[in-house]
């Protein structure tokens, strides 16, 4: 599903050159739920940005769903992002002026679906996250957990093959966080590949595989299921 080989990302200013990713190698298979952890500044967010084609990279190769994205132009990256990837952000990133219906509608409009199809997808996805009865509400009228559920609905509405979650529970209390994690696991079980960036090791344990990033490189890979079996 996602293969990064020797990916490099360098941020340059006049005085400083920062290697955010150095020879970053990672393979995520279809249907996997992978958690990426690591300390602040380790390169987690840079990895997420590159994986989501929000940023370009300086070297190496990145193949997403069988397509080498290294040399795509801005329009092609936007199209691929819209079709293949669903994003869940730490601060939800809902558009405050739009109600829930219109928020979920945003990526679907860029996809070019007709009104009927969009309406059906929006209703389905809001139903999935249990907010179908709040479609006309504004984000500010919802709790943090509910807002994150809307963000998940927005990510799901396009029926992406790949979900990228950036600290999806970072702004939630533990009960809300667990609820969101359960929703993500349920989505994963329905076949969607998920890569979740988190600094919370306990949350990471709920993914099937943990990647630990340090100094811009993958330093450890744990199969959580095998660890659980071993611990038992």
């Amino acid at each position, binding site marked *: 599903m996602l293969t990064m080989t020797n990916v490099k990302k360098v941020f340059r200013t006049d005085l400083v050159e920062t290697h955010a990713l150095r020879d970053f190698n990672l393979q995520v298979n279809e249907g996997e739920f992978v958690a990426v952890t690591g300390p602040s500044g380790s390169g987690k967010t840079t990895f997420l940005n590159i994986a989501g084609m*929000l*940023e370009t990279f300086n070297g190496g190769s990145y193949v997403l769903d069988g397509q080498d994205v290294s040399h795509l132009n801005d329009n092609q990256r936007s199209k691929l*992002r819209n079709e293949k990837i669903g994003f869940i952000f730490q601060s939800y*990133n809902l558009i405050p002026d*739009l109600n829930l219906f219109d928020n979920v509608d945003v990526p679907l409009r860029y996809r070019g679906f007709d009104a009927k199809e969009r309406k059906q997808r929006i209703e389905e996805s809001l139903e999935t996250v249990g907010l179908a009865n709040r479609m006309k509400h504004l984000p500010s009228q919802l709790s943090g957990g509910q807002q994150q559920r809307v963000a998940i609905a927005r990510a799901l509405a396009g029926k992406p093959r790949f979900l990228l979650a950036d600290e999806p529970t970072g702004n939630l209390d533990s009960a809300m966080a667990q609820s969101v994690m359960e929703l993500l696991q349920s989505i994963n079980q329905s076949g969607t590949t998920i890569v979740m960036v988190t600094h919370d090791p306990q949350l990471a344990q709920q993914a099937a595989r943990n990647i630990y990033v340090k100094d811009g490189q993958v330093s450890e890979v744990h199969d959580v299921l095998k660890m659980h079996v071993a611990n038992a």
Partner: protein
Amino acid sequence: MLELGPIFRALLRNKVGALLIAVQIAFTMAIIVNSVFIIYERSQETKRPSGLDEANSFFISSSGFGENFGAKATIEKDLTDIRAISGVVSAIQINAIPVSGGGWSMSLQTEPGAEHDGVGTAVYMVNENGLDALGLELLAGENFVASDIRWRQNSESTWPDKVIVTKAMAERLFPDIDYGQSVGKTVYINDNEPMIIVGIIDKLQAPWVGWNNVENSMLSPEHQETDSVRYFIRTAPGQRDSTMKQVEELLAKNKERVVDGMRSIEYVRERSYRGHTAMIKILTTVIITLTIVTSLGIVGLASFSVNRRKKQIGIRRALGARKIDVIKYFMLENLMISGVGVLLGAGLTIALNMLLVKALSITPMDWFYIPIGMIVLCLIGQLAVYGPAKKATGIAPAIATRTV
């Protein structure tokens, strides 16, 4: 895909800024459209032909004062001498100068009697050389002959029995027949004095350029026997300026009079329309200033909007918006604001025009100025918003993953 619904709903939640711009667009439209209409109207007025051979004509005044000054003899001699100057095509004595701002007016009517309304007309007293000197085209009938011309004393109140009128005047007097058929018809001056229309000329404007009846003129076959006279001289092409000097020197030889007020018709025309020209300049400045101010307002609002919504733009980009989608979003948003503005503006434009029609007696604006104004204002809005919208495309989608 156009985001009309979401943009409209989002605008409703942040309506103050947008509404202010819409109101600004409305006022701008009302002022600009009315200004353009007035400019066009004034500019058309300044381009109206007077009927004269303007480039080759001038006039000069002479006021006799000596005890032995004989008006009739002087006029006859002056005209003979002036016509003898090389380059002079024709010369006449005339009581008033077209488009100069000062002259005579009377009223002609088709039925005798004070109870009947007449049609206002400028009066030019000329001899049989009048058509040639003024450069007029005879459309129907005939010119005066020498025997038609009489000498008019200052105290004279009667009128000759022949008259030549402009085509416009003939059509006003006899609206139901072709102008050519008005030749031979009798009209009445001073309520009851008959005059027979002997000829129709194409065009000769009255002295007053702002007069509603500016195209209504009549030629009366007479010389004025007076010490203060005005001569109208037409020269061969290109010889006006040199002839002016010669005519002035010629008249100045008679020491029993003062010669002054020599002006070319081009100068007279420029002076008469100076008010129009000034108004056109002022209104053009108003239009340019308002367009700039409104454009800057739109640029300001759009720039503020882009800065305020940086994160939102990044989120949209992350969710699949292409750069062109970002540009389309802002341009569509502006089009909706401008749309409201020009709809309000259409009403304001009509209201302002009605006010101007009442206050300044201008003609009502043609309807098509409104839709053209709406389109132009919307285009100005689109041009103004393009810069900030283009700038918004520079916002990276990666901004979506930043928490601050």
